[in-house]
């Protein structure tokens, strides 16, 4: 079970959280002005990297707040968690691995 550092509550077990998928995908300001291709990418197309991934997490059974996290999808290591609207301090490129 993952141990996740909620930026507001600190370390909590994974069962308190819900993962909301890839982070930093802003809803278009004017969806009506977006063509079908771009709208379908906004709706459905997500990255699935091997390595560091920026994800949305919700502390559903805790403070209820959404936040972002950088997680290495190979090691499951959390590089950092940070509040909504903030940018990560770390690089989001894949970690080097042996």
């Amino acid at each position, binding site marked *: 079970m993952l141990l996740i550092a909620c930026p507001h509550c600190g370390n909590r077990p994974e069962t308190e959280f819900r993962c909301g998928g890839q982070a930093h995908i802003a809803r278009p300001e004017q969806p*009506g002005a977006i063509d079908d291709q771009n709208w379908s990418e906004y709706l459905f197309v997500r990255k699935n990297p091997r390595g560091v991934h920026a994800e949305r997490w919700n502390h559903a059974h805790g403070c209820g707040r959404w936040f972002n996290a950088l997680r290495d999808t190979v090691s499951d290591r959390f590089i950092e968690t940070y509040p909504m609207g903030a940018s990560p301090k770390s690089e989001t490129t894949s970690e080097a691995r042996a």
Partner: protein
Amino acid sequence: MAQPFRLSRGGRIDRSRPIVFEFNGKPIHGYQGDTVASALIANGIHLVGRSFKYHRPRGILSHGPDEPSALLSVDRGPGRVDPNNRASVVEARAGLRTTSQNHWPSLEYDIGAVNDLLSPVFVAGFYYKTFMWPRKFWDKVYEPFIRAAAGLGKAPTQADPDRYANRHAHCDVLIVGAGPAGLAAALAAARTGKRVILADEGPEPGGSLLHDPKAEIDGRLASDWLADTLADLDARENVILLPRTTVFGYYNHNHVAMTERVTDHLPSVAGQAPRERLWQVRAGEVILAGGSHERPLVFADNDRPGILLAESVRVFLNRYGVAPGHRLVVATSGASAYQVALDAKAAGLDVTLVDLRLEADCGPEVTRLRQVGVEVLTGHTVVGSKGRKRVSGLIVAPVESNGRCGARRVIPCDCVGMSGGWTPAVHLFSQSRGKLRYDDALDAFVPNISAQAERSAGAARGTYDLAGCLTEGFAAGAAASGSSETRTFGASPTLTGFQPVRVMPTDADPTRVRAFVDYQNDVTAKDIKLAVREGFQSIEHVKRYTTTGMATDQGKTSNMNALGIVAGQLDKALPAVGTTTFRPPYTPVTFGALVGPARHALFDPIRTTPIHGWAESHGATFENVALWRRAWYFPKAGEDLHEAVARECKAVREGVGIFDASTLGKIEVVGPDAAEFMNRMYVNPWAKLANGRCRYGLMLKEDGYILDDGVVARVSDQCFHVTTTTGGAARVLGHMEDYLQTEWPDLQVFLTSTTEQWAVIALQGPKARQVIEPLVEGIDLSPEAFPHMAMRTGTICGVPTRLFRVSFTGELGFEINVPSDHALAVWEAIFSAGEPHGITPYGTETMHVLRAEKGYIIVGQETDGTVTPDDVGMAGMIAKTKVDFVGKRSLARPDVIATTGRKQLVGLMTEDPKLVLDEGAQIVADPNQPIPMRMLGHVTSSYWSPNCNRSIALALVADGRALMGRTLHITTPDGFTRATVSEAVFFDTKGERVNA
């Protein structure tokens, strides 16, 4: 009372506390501190089971958790029967009834042993090769046969009466294994003040020290050092010492699972003590000091009862004071077994040692052993054994310089201790996703790169000498606690080092030799070689094809030998073959421990409303809706579901019905931007909704499909009382919070779930107003002052209420929201007031029928996550003037605006009015078309309608609105039936009754 093989002294058993338990119905005498295995051996019993495939007589191989053969069914009393317990780890105690497994009619005379004679048939992949054809044999012949033959023990048939506990814990340092390395680690960590948990699977901490009484540590007897160390740890408040606790799973981020066996070893249990306790520990650092496992030697008939692992012979002698036999042959390819021979000789056994190694490759151990008068045969192989239900001789032969075997010699014996070297227990390390490294000198995989905050120490990482284990353990304990302290321990030297051997050299035809690699699955070296010849190259495939390394022991004794044989066959180096994946659990875990208290009423939370007790006492039948338990219908004496629902449906339309709608999700949307937020979340327009008015709200996901619906009341300019579906409450709040927090944090809105705070009493029917009129204060109930889809605040029975005039039945109706604490009192008052009017309580089934008569949809029943507002005929609700709301852009998706082919909500009238269609039934235009037919859609809701006096159904049908009046064909269990497409409203089609 006689225990003929009990030594006159020695061991850690308590000779002042004799115990008696049962084995196959016979009393077995032993002492407190015995395992079932040691007590059986003390009584000269080695034959304890029949093997899985060949039903060969099998004995006790090991003294510990790696035991593959001695699996017993253990009966601890009524309902407390457990199969496949390892005799080597079950603590003997009074009252235990143990029985051997996998034989008929008895352990001694087993008909299944005929399989042994047929062994040429049961080769690797036997199942895949045999049960291929004919096809029709599968159900009647093959499957029953396989099922009957599968498994060893018998699963218990009664419910488990025991209690199981569950505990979460945190610590700085978790140490797995309380042998020399683990104890030294604990000493080092404890001194730093860190919180330490030290878990060991045995009943007594100490590990190898428990059977090494003559060893010395820092100039003192190891047993004294052990006692002092345990006293030191025990006195510290920052140390939790857990015996009988198996660490079985190592998960992400140092989440470690272990089971503590709390009471199985006790003859009687006081109070409510649990049988086992599941610990889930989140550790800052983990130290793996779980030791190592000895490898058997692979030679013909190496599985006879009386043939044990060499170190296990030593454990039985030294720890339990039991001689596994009178005449012992130690067969080895390494040095550690010499200590076994020395200890056995000292205990008075007649000992011979056979070593595969050439004399020149051996150390001073040979001389030491010869000095005490033991015959040592170096450069000798073992080519077989004599005996049937007990070994009676070991057949050995010298290995000539050309590799051939010399003249055979039979060494008479009643016990063999064999050692093919050692394998570090890297199971937990591998579970933690650490990377292994193959160490040539150790002929073993050892921990290399850690994936988590973890380190291994002692034999678990291939350090086999006592001083090394202590020194390494201490350093690991210090380092895990952030200290750099080191301590060098002095200890008596340990005999280490071995020559790897996969299969013992033999002069026999290798295609006929049955040398067992995996005892539990009856896998021989020959089987593994055959699998490789048949093309299986991956060790994972060989494992599954031959079943080597599977079942309850997971190949603890066999894996390295199997791996070596595969590598040899493929002519590859061991690391190129790799290991199979180690997965939890390390040893078997009871279901009880995993389930813990989550049984019966605690299995899943059950939510009930404040009216629940009233419904129960009025005879309601309940149904589960999400986690809620809701009144389904209220049968009167003799009524079935249909009769009760018919009566309830009529009562609502003709008089008045009362319904508990408290499970409706409720969300209070408050703030200066509440209306703007509502505008963005729902398809409907909210800005102009007047205070005190309601609107049916439809909510979409961003993909344009319906997510939820419900009536929303505007309480004030800045406050909306939102209702959701019962099952959708949490989902809708989460959906709203997501947008509010992540997309529009600038909006000043608060969202609060009020589902549990407001109870809702639905009063529906033409007489509803008459019933509540005398109870309501502060609200003008007249149709003019309080029209349909309005909300007023006031009091009912003196209780504050948000009174909604809304209807999910199509009748005049009220949904009376009152604080939950007062709900029962209000409900009872309304019920009393309604009795002169014939008030009828109704349940969810009637609610469903009544709304279907009106064509009102239920999200999740008429919709399935691919349904748009237009599909259910609600396009007209969408605000025309709003630039944006969640889902709006998707309503312009090419597939959504497609002019043909979308499934639309319609009614279906069966030609036979008595026939109630199945919900989910498929709909086609022409039942005679070839298969696969084109499905037009499916029935979403279907009921007998008492008010229409016929069946009614709602359906999603492709282009359904263009098919009005057409006949379609719907599947039934008896073939197709015919129905006419109609409007999705069956009663009061003009909708006048709600305005009464």
